[in-house]
């Protein structure tokens, strides 16, 4: 248990007194026998004496011992050492870091939702099942699809679901030779990873110079072994695929399916429907588009919409309506279940409430203002660094810092300098096809004042990159720490706190 590794010492560093102090770890704060909240009043003596000794825990629990107030201060201080949309402009491309209305936090916390057991008898959870039914009906319309599953826990989970459905579909058709999934080289990493998990071979399709899929290369890659082509729309470059109609026609003509990665659905909301564009399967990241904050990495949810011919393969359980009653049923041709229970209910309920609250016009305005903000900011920055793609962008755009190569400044340096200016950073080094990429997504929720300020500061940083590049290499200097040594972190990883005492009694190092 890391016994050989020494703790990394936490001294405050030299000459950087403006850095906020780091917080000691829980195990540093721990004081033997200190207690916080008591979950129960009295425990009878010998509570577990009826259990045989060989099944009882013998090792320490290893948990910290601190008071409730100390706990509150610890986590509050940790929160102050982090940034969120609530505190900073967060132009992280592809992640749609928009404002998620606070009223939505209230929705899953309502009695009858937060305290509802997922295996409650169906007749006693009709309000909940009805809400899920309403949401899937609504998503069918928003996505332009014939059927929707709410089960997937995230976008990548939705991808895996779609991929397993494609597998079942072709197996049922007897076309088991379709072993390949084609993915543009601009795709999110989850696309090829999901395809591989589903047992498919992945083939990458190159993009052309303007960031669109290379039709000729697609044509060459397509064969009777192609099961599916996965596209992101708008693309990860923030562009609408100009030849999408042609892509659809060619994929169809080879009998393959067309999947849309809906991570960028904020650009289509209420304006354009994936089903109408010709996609057979689409997932939507409700945590990006429909009012769930990202929570430092999750939870999310990734409902999947499909055309009617794929409906039998949707995951179990399905929510069905029989008369006025809602039920959960399993279907025999389904790919099976993909999680313990019906869905990430707390996330899904927010999506329903959000769409109802915005209404038809409000949803449209989401997409239109996401486009307005992205195009406006692009316009303000396109003479600062080169933009990939011509004309109007969708909800995001990609700049390349490659022109700063001769100054020795990279995209990461720009990102770190932005942290010092009081912003979170854009997505860097993605998509992979743009060298030194900085991907910027302002979302519909940011004001023109914020965008103007960001453009001004961004411009100044690039000017500094040209005049005094070394300064940028030393950024960030106002954050709690400077750039962490990632090589050291990965060489001999310290993944648990070395200050935690050993769990095993001395002389009994059982686990290792």
């Amino acid at each position: 248990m890391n016994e050989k590794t020494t703790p990394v010492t936490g001294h405050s560093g030299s000459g950087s007194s403006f850095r906020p102090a780091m917080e000691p770890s829980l195990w540093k704060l721990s004081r033997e026998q200190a207690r916080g909240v008591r979950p129960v009043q009295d425990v009878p003596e010998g509570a577990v004496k009826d259990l045989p000794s060989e099944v009882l825990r013998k090792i320490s629990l290893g948990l910290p011992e601190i008071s409730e107030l100390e706990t509150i201060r610890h986590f509050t201080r940790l929160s102050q050492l982090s940034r969120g949309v609530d505190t900073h402009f967060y132009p992280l491309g592809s992640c749609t870091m928009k404002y998620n209305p606070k009223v939505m936090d209230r929705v899953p916390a309502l009695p009858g939702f937060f305290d509802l057991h997922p295996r409650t008898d169906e007749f006693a959870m009709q309000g909940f099942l009805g809400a899920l039914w309403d949401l899937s009906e609504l998503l069918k319309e928003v996505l332009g699809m014939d059927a929707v599953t709410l089960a997937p826990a995230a976008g990548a989970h939705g991808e895996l679901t779609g991929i397993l459905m494609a597998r079942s579909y072709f197996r049922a058709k007897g076309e088991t030779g379709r072993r390949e999934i084609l993915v543009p080289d601009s795709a999110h990493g989850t696309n090829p990873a999901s395809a591989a998990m589903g047992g498919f071979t992945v083939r990458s399709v190159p993009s052309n110079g303007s960031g669109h899929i290379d039709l000729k290369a697609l044509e060459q890659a397509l064969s009777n072994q192609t099961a599916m082509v996965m596209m992101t729309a708008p693309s990860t470059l923030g562009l609408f695929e100009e030849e999408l109609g042609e892509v659809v026609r060619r994929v169809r003509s080879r009998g393959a399916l067309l999947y849309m990665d809906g991570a960028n659905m904020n650009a289509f909301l209420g304006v354009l429907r994936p089903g109408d564009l010709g996609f057979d399967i689409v997932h939507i990241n409700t945590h990006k588009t429909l009012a769930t904050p990202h929570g430092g990495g999750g939870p999310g949810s990734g409902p999947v919409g499909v055309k009617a011919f794929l409906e039998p393969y949707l995951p179990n359980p399905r929510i069905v309506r029989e008369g006025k009653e809602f039920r959960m049923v399993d279907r025999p041709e389904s790919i099976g279940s993909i999680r313990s229970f019906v869905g990430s209910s707390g996330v899904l309920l927010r999506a329903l409430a959000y769409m109802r609250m915005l209404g038809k016009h409000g949803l449209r305005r989401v997409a239109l203002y996401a486009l307005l903000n992205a195009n406006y900011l692009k316009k303000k920055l396109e003479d600062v660094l080169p933009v990939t793609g011509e004309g109007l962008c969708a909800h995001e755009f990609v700049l390349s810092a490659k022109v700063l190569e001769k100054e020795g400044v990279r995209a990461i340096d720009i990102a770190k300098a932005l942290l010092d200016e009081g912003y979170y950073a854009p997505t860097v080094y993605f998509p992979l096809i743009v060298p030194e990429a900085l991907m910027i997504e302002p979302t519909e929720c940011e004001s023109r004042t914020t965008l103007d300020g960001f453009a001004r500061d961004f411009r100044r940083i690039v000017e500094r990159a040209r005049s005094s590049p070394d300064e940028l290499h030393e950024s960030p200097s106002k954050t709690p720490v400077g750039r962490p040594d990632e090589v050291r972190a990965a060489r001999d990883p310290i993944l648990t706190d070395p200050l935690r005492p050993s769990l095993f009694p001395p002389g009994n190092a059982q686990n290792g």
Partner: protein
Amino acid sequence: MADFIPHTQSETREMLDVLGLSSLEDLVGAYPKAGLFPELPLSGGGLTERDVLSEMKRLASKNAGASSVVVFRGGGSYEHFIPEAVPALIGRGEFLTSYTPYQPEASQGLLQAIFEFQTAISSVYGMDLSNASLYDGATAAAEACLVAIRHTGRTVLLVSDGLDPSISNVIKTYVEGLGGRLVTVPLVEGTTRLSDLEERLDGNCAAFIGAIPTFWGTVENFTGFRAALESRGALFLLHANPHSLSVLKSPGEWQADLGTGEGQPLGIPMMAGGPYLGLLTASRAFMRKIPGRLVGQTADAEGRTAYVLTLQAREQHIRREKANSNVCTNETLLSLAALAYLTLVGPQGFREAGETSHVNAARLMKGLAGLPGVRILFPRTPHFHEFVVELSLPARDVSRRLLEMGYLGGLPLEGWPVLGGSNRMLWCATEVRTSDEIRGVVSAVGEILSGREAR
């Protein structure tokens, strides 16, 4: 109209002017004209904050949540005490509204919290390390099986019948792509026998997966399992309810290679099934083979302690189709909830909660066992906080009548495999149940079974 868009009309106008456009609709010029602005089954103007909440309240009020019924049901989701400080802390905007901490300098607090979560969870599981979370318990178990398949190059998974059948189903879905196949190891008197494992164990087996406690509430003795599996080159996987590990021997003490679990009992509401918290712990030998985010401790150039996402070469955004998993979004906020819960209750409170669950379930079992028309399955096998009973009436009817009397009783097992049956119920009592509630539900079941209850 509510849409959280800050632009004034004149700002919109000026921004369009900068772009040389005359209207917002001009922005979608690159989109195909056909299908633009579809009709949607929503009101045009939307709802106010008050109206949307009252609409959602109407839906919520039609469900028998724990605030309106007394819960004696588990089976993978449990009502536990959640300190008020837990939602207060994870509701801090800097946590709630942040993304995966790709920029470590601006995310040190979040990264440290994940690092502390990894420490706390690996401690509870008695394992060397933990990842930052997966979707839920079932997907964590399934990912562990994928690790075993990739590590051994073998495809057969021996699955104890003690594992939650709904988890086995998810494993089946997940391993299909890699050609994985499940072979069940039966239960005898509610536990898996070593001889039954050995009988099925051969050179094609990637791993055995067992449960602590079993879905049916029994507690297994895995003595000898590690050695048997190791001798055939198969991995030992244990799926454990973390609440039970305050009392029961941990995966690490059984010398498991990977330990997985559903983190919901650690300060996370039942929330109609999710979002939950997939836990995946491992011995250090599997550090570079497991899926999911990992936070490591390091230092900056001036020697300050710093935290970063590490070993990212395992992950989809770097390795694409060669990654250990496709997982990207995880359940970080719920990891923080679990960490805050474990910190607030501390080792003593955590243990007392586990002990009280066990005592309450034993009281409930004793009460029900005394009723005519009730038979406890495997009363001599140790149980943790759940157990299966067979009733003289269909369980579904009993459940319905209990709900009318204010109880969410045991889970009806009609249609379930293994110990399932139309007259069987899986009962549970956690630390939140009182003696009065236990007496109350026992007498309610007694009335129903004797046909005496008011109809």
